[in-house]
């Protein structure tokens, strides 16, 4: 598995192509990409992402390993940025490869559900009105119960 926690921007397309090229015998690849968006149209200037350096990588590895234990997967890729990001920048991506599409889809959804609520990242939105920490959603915690 390929897990990267980084401040630098990355090229989603190049990563997706490289991920597909690294697989063999895996006919299905699913990617999820999270993008900074001004969802409410309240002039989002920036999103600041804080993380817990000593723990982040371990937490992501544990989630990725759990996915590999549950589904028949080729490889798993997780890239997550921290620091100050601006609207339309890519925050993070996951990619999963499997022989069959259902495994690739389920593993990607599982990774996202657990990454959302179990990996130590915190987002702060900076708008013209000030800066506010993004509140965790009950729906995100609830999403874990289905696995």
């Amino acid at each position, binding site marked *: 598995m390929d897990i990267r926690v980084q401040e630098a921007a990355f090229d989603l397309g190049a990563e997706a192509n490289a991920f597909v090229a690294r697989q063999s015998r895996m006919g299905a690849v699913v990617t999820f990409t999270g993008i900074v968006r001004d969802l409410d149209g309240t002039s989002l200037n920036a999103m600041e992402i*804080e993380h*817990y350096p000593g723990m982040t990588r371990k937490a992501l590895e544990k989630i990725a390993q759990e996915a590999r234990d549950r589904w028949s997967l080729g490889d798993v890729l997780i890239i997550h940025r921290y620091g100050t990001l601006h609207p339309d920048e890519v925050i993070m991506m996951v990619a999963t490869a499997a022989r069959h599409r259902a495994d690739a889809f389920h593993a990607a959804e599982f990774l996202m559900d657990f990454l*959302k609520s179990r990996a130590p*990242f915190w987002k*702060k939105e900076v708008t013209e009105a000030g800066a506010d920490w993004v509140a*965790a959603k009950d729906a995100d915690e609830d999403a874990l119960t289905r696995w």
Partner: protein
Amino acid sequence: MDVLYFAWVRERIGVPKERIDHAPATVMDLVNDLRAREDRYAVAFSDLSALRVAVDQELSDFDASLAGAREVAFFPPMTGG
């Protein structure tokens, strides 16, 4: 033992990290020691349901033992992805 704070917990307490020289038995004992120090701690720890804790970089519970622990971190629910 190092105690770390992230996100708004860090902002309310005012430091990202500090060293504790005594050895509380559980996370809850540590929380109560901190609460007793100053208002900023009491405020940060006023609603534990809004907080999460990691002991030695693993998610844990407030009633967990701190025996042998080297690092405890407090933070709000995560919002990655």
